[in-house]
């Protein structure tokens, strides 16, 4: 309901001021009206869950761009405008106005039709493809290659180094992994749309496909954790608390059965003095995670396995697999991520484009000496003292304006090329 009221009030203001901009006979008034319209649109951006857009709408559009407009209007002293009358005077290359007006009308009708026809569909958007990666915890000395239905997920993976996520179509996959000594293992898994999976090879030819929850973390300054137990004993994650205080251990994730994945929990950022313990012996540290830093907006899956080292013996290992969780919709963070991943090319082009416009502004306004310059009288009129401009705005005649009026009329500009 609040959104509806905001929409009606702010939307109405936006339209009203846009109309005012069109009808105003003073360019400064037009510019100020446009600023109001832009601020209204910024408010609507906020209502639409687009805080970043609202921010740059105000700073870049209402701020930088409109200031530039006002500056040029005042610089040229061009604030007084002819009334908006299309039929008056020499109308050149504007014969297409009726055509475009028709176009405008049809757009308006289009808008009406949209309303009558109702709901814009959007509910069943294309599902995001699942993404998958692999990590080698089977051997410290050998490399691992993983394929899913023949698609290469990770190749020659060294121990504990996860591969990059790759996108893959949803569906059932036969996932097979092979160590560099030739031993191979396989299992099948169904990969659902919109989920991230990590293939973990561990133990003696075991293969787990762990789904990771990378959705937005709702709580502020928090991180998400889950524990996967790849051993054959029941494990818990405990917070050891201070080393100097006895009996302040607190169980964070309790009693995960062998081969199971815990539900994910959300923790506030900070530093935790953690350890993974056997559920049967909660006071003995199985694997320490001392001074473990909880970084906000990350989703971490702790993978507990017994890793085979070079000598063939098995040692406890807890590997934290960290990924960035999806940033909140429309947040600056989300926009920033997109800019550096999917939209890298347009971003680069944009940089080049801004360079081009900078060069252009210099080229267009730089005049070398010795070229044809406006006469002295013209120059004086072009750069009127700002005081006069302001005086003209507020309707007071200043002293220098009277002096200005006393000057002889500037000669009309020369016709070129006729």
């Amino acid at each position: 309901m609040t959104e509806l009221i905001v929409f009606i009030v702010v939307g109405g203001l936006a339209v009203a001021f846009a109309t005012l901009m069109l009808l105003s006979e003073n360019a400064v008034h037009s510019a100020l009206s446009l600023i109001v319209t832009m601020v209204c649109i910024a408010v609507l951006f906020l209502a639409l869950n687009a805080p970043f857009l609202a921010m740059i709408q105000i700073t870049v559009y209402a701020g930088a761009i409109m200031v530039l407009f006002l500056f040029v209007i005042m610089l040229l002293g061009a604030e007084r405008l002819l009334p908006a009358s299309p039929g008056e005077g020499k109308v050149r290359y504007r014969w297409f106005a009726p055509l475009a007006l028709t176009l405008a009308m049809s757009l308006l009708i289009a808008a009406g039709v949209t309303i009558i026809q109702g709901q814009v569909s959007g509910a069943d958007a294309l599902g995001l493809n699942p993404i998958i990666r692999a990590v080698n915890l089977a051997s410290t000395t050998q490399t691992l290659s993983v394929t899913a239905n023949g698609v290469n997920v990770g190749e020659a993976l060294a121990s504990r180094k996860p591969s990059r996520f790759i996108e893959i179509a949803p569906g059932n996959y036969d996932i097979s992994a092979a160590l560099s000594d030739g031993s191979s293992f396989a299992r099948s898994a169904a990969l659902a749309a919109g989920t991230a999976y990590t293939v973990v090879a561990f133990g003696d030819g075991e293969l787990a496909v762990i789904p990771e929850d990378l959705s937005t973390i709702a709580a502020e300054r928090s991180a998400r954790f889950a524990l996967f137990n790849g051993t054959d004993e029941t494990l818990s994650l405990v917070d050891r608390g201070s080393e100097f205080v006895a009996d302040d251990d607190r169980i964070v994730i309790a009693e995960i059965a062998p081969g199971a994945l815990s539900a994910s929990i959300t923790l506030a950022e900070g530093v935790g003095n953690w350890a993974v313990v056997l559920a049967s012996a909660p006071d003995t540290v199985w694997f320490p995670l001392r001074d473990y830093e909880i970084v906000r907006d990350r989703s971490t899956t702790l993978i507990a396995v017994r890793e085979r080292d070079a000598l063939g013996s098995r040692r406890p290992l807890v590997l934290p697999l960290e990924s960035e969780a999806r940033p909140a919709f429309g947040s600056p963070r989300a926009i920033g991520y997109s800019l550096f991943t999917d939209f890298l090319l347009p971003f680069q082009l944009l940089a080049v484009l801004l360079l081009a416009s900078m060069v252009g502004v210099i080229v267009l306004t730089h005049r070398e000496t010795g070229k044809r310059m406006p006469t002295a009288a013209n120059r004086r009129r072009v750069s009127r003292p700002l005081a006069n401009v302001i005086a003209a705005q507020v309707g007071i005649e200043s002293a220098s304006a009277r002096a200005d009026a006393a000057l002889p009329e500037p000669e009309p500009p020369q016709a070129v090329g006729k």
Partner: protein
Amino acid sequence: MPFELPSLSQLNLGVSIPAMSVAVWACILLLIDLWIPKDRKERTAWLAAGGLVFAFVVNLFTFNSGETAFLGMFVADGFTGVLNIVILITAFIAILMSIDYLRRTGTERGEYYVLMLLSISGAMFMAAANDLITVFVALELLSIPLYILAAFRTPDLKSEESGMKYFILGAFASAFLVYGSALIYGATGTTNLNEIFQSVDRVVTQGSTSVFLLLLGAGLVLVGLGFKVAVVPFHMWTPDVYEGAPTPVTAFMSVAAKVGGFGALLRVMMVGLPAFMLQDGATHTAWQQTVWLIAAATLILGNLIAISQTNIKRLLAYSSIAHAGYIMMAVAAAGTQGVGTSAAQAAAVYLLAYMFTNIGAFAVAQALERDDGTGTKLDDFVGLARSQPLLAFMMAVFMLSLTGIPLTAGFIGKWLVFQATLQAELVPLAVIGVLTSVVSAFYYIRVVVNMYLRDTAKEIVLPGESPRLNWAIYLSFAGTLVVGILPALVTGLSSSVNFTALMMP
């Protein structure tokens, strides 16, 4: 999606080197230019041309790799490759034309070449863009330097006016393009052309508002790109801008803006919206009818108004509108199922042929143009054959090629376009095309008649003639004849034209 910076191998930059290198070289050249003395700016020109040659060579290697770069934003298929060739040759000849022109009109500045490079990098990215956002940004990268170049003879009022008109209508057109793209995004939920293609079926089966948004969006995109390539009824800026802009810039923009615009138009219409059929079992896309009408109107109006022109630059402007109409015929043909690839090939060959011929004609006009911009009336060509037989002959060939007489490049282009149109069962459009070609002969032949059959007592001097301009003319002349006499060369080239992502052949 977890945030990971894409690795270099994921970005697959290799295939985008032709376009990338031009943009990067432009930035470097901007710095180098600071150390080039004011009266030695032709060095900047040669450095710029060197960058183009490098990009051309790399383009031959990455040609038709069929790979994508920048995570699917950039497609390097055969279509991109052929258009890159056209764009790079255009820029090379335009730079040859510019060096002496800038000097004699007193506007010699290093930034000119930098802007030209930036503009063609925009055109190349546009031809390869596989996403509506990239299309928009690349279009602006193509256009903004062109606005500046059109006004480059400042403080000459004609040139400034030309830049201003181009700018206003260009910005207006961009607004239509982005609104259209926004509506397509609203209907399909994506800006990637391949994904749009996948969503279109779903949207159509759902019916209702989304179809309407899609139709309106496609229409507005057509309007926006129609402005850029100057088709009726969005052509009115063309003659003014072409007349006022410095001649080498006119020559350049008459080709580069068209190549970029048609490249993007074909890709959006064929890769993004090909399956855009409102009923099951239809063999024509929903937008074909509209494009058909635009093409017909462009052909008729462009050719008829050109008849009454007395200035060669304005005549060539209307002729360029008419030629946009012929390429639009190919776009219309692409709307029939099964004709897409051959229509795209026809359009690419047409652009190649048009490029050589049109730039050549502008180069000849530039040789006659005086330093103050006069000397481009059709009457100034009277008696040219007697005093400058070689130049007159080449101009005659350019005019014949624009008409589409056999043994010239123009004929091959038209022949392929008409073939595609007939294949697409658009017989009335093909008939209009042939008839307007006959009409166009009136005004093209008039230039030839002025040069050969009318005579004047006074000796014609060529104020703009210079060895470098001559080379530009020779190059265009050679291109026109080679394409015309050895069509196998271009048809071989064009047979590689394909869209990697093309779903409907």
